[in-house]
C-alpha cells in the first residue's frame, strides 16, 4: 500500500487558512453586536407611515419618556385611576395584536375588576405590512366617536375577533361590525370616509415610534410612580402578569 505523506511546504497556506475561523467569528460577532445595537436602539421605526422627518425625530428622542400623557381623550378600559396602566399601540391586522388582544382581555379579567390595571388603546397601523390596517383603526375610532367608550371597546373586540389578520378582513365587514355592536351604520360610514381621525391616528403612530416602538403589538406598562416598562410583541400572559406585579410594587 502506498502512503503519501503531507508535503512540508504546505505549512504556509495552512497558516493563512487558520485565520478563517477567527475572522469569521469576528465578523459574526460584529453582525450580532450590530444586531443588538440596531434592534434595541431608539430609532429605526418600521412603519410605512413614517416619513423622513419622524424617523429623524425618533432616532434622536425615541424613549419611553416620549409617551403621550394618558388623558381623558384616550380610550381606557377599566379604572382610569388604576395604579398600573398598560398603553398598547396596536395594528388591527397584525396577527400578534389579535393574539395579544385576548391576553389583555385576560389581564382585565384578573386585574381590571378590582381597579388595579387599566388598558389604554392607541393606534399603530403598519401600512407597510397591512394596507387595510389604517382604515380599520379609523373604524375603531369612529365607533368610539359615535357610541362612546363602551362601543369603542365593543367594536375593537369584535374586529379583533373576526379578522383573519394580515389584510384578510373584507372592508365590507366594517359596517357589519358596527351594526353588530349597535352603532348607527349611516353615521359610521360617514365617519369612516370623513378623514376625521387621520391626524389622530398618525399622531398615535408617531408617538409609538417616538417611544421606541419597532413593531406591533408595542406596549408600555406604567406604574403609579410613573416608572415605565417596555413590552414588545405578543408576550405570554405569564410575562405580562409578572410585569404588572412588578409595576404594582412600585411606590
Amino acid at each position, binding site marked *: *500500500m*502506498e*502512503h*503519501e*505523506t*503531507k508535503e512540508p511546504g*504546505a505549512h504556509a497556506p*495552512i497558516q493563512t*487558512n*487558520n485565520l*478563517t*475561523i477567527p475572522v*469569521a*467569528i469576528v*465578523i*459574526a460577532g460584529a*453582525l*450580532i453586536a*450590530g*444586531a*443588538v445595537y*440596531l*434592534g*434595541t*436602539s431608539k*430609532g*429605526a*421605526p*418600521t*412603519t*410605512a407611515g413614517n416619513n423622513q422627518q419622524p*424617523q429623524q425625530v425618533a432616532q434622536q428622542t425615541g424613549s419611553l419618556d416620549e409617551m403621550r400623557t394618558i388623558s381623558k381623550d384616550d380610550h381606557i378600559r377599566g379604572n382610569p385611576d388604576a395604579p398600573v396602566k398598560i398603553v398598547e399601540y396596536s*395594528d388591527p391586522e*397584525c*396577527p*400578534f*395584536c389579535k393574539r395579544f388582544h385576548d391576553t389583555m382581555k385576560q389581564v382585565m379579567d384578573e386585574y381590571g375588576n378590582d381597579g388595579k390595571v387599566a388598558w389604554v388603546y392607541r393606534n399603530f397601523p*403598519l401600512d*407597510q*405590512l*397591512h394596507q387595510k390596517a389604517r382604515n380599520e383603526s379609523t373604524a375603531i375610532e369612529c365607533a368610539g366617536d359615535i357610541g362612546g367608550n363602551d362601543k369603542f371597546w365593543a367594536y375593537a373586540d369584535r374586529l379583533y375577533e373576526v379578522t383573519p389578520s394580515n389584510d384578510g378582513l373584507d372592508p365590507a365587514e366594517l359596517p357589519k361590525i358596527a351594526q353588530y355592536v349597535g352603532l348607527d351604520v349611516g353615521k359610521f360610514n360617514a365617519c369612516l370616509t370623513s378623514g376625521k381621525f387621520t391626524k389622530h391616528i398618525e399622531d398615535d403612530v408617531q408617538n409609538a415610534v417616538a417611544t421606541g416602538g*419597532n*413593531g*406591533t*403589538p408595542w406596549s408600555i406598562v406604567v406604574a403609579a410612580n410613573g416608572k415605565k*416598562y*417596555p*413590552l*414588545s*410583541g*405578543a*408576550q*405570554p400572559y*405569564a*410575562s405580562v402578569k*409578572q*410585569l404588572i*406585579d*412588578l409595576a404594582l*410594587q412600585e411606590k
Partner: protein
Amino acid sequence: MYALIALVTSAVVFAFAVWFPNISLIVEIMGHPGISFSQKLDLPISLLGSIATNFTLLSASYTIAIALLFGVNLAMTIYFLRRKISEVRQSGVATGFIGLASGVLGMGCAACGSLLLTSGLSLVGASGILAFLPLAGGEFGILGVILLLASIYLIAKQIQNPAICKI
C-alpha cells in the same frame, strides 16, 4: 462533552432569539435594585414562552433549527480545533458563522415588523424592501438554516477525511 457544548450553545442562541425584542426590558429588570432575585429570574424564564405566542410557525421553526444547528456546528468546530486538523479547509466553519449571521437577520421577526432587518434597512432608507419579500424577512432565517446545514456537512466531511496521511 461535545454534546454539552452543543446543548449549551443552542440554549444560549435560542434564548437570545426569543429575548431579542425585549432585551432592554430584561436588562432593566436585572439592574433594578427593588426587585427580588427570584422575580428577576421569573420574567426572562416566562418570556421564553413567547416562542409560542410571538412567532409564526415558520419563524419558530427556523429559530429553533438555527439554535440547534449552531450548537452542533460550534461543537464540531471545537472538536475540529482540538484535533488540530489545521490543514483541512475551513470553509465549513466560515459558512456556519455566515449562516448564523443570516439567521440573526431573520430572527428579529417577532411580532409584526422584523426588528433587526427593518432597523438595519431603515438606516439606509430601504425599509420598503420588506414589502417585496414574500416572507417579510423570514427568507434570511431559512437561508441561515441552509448555510448551517451546509457548514455541518462540510465540517463532517473534513473530519472524516483528516488529510494527515492519504492512503
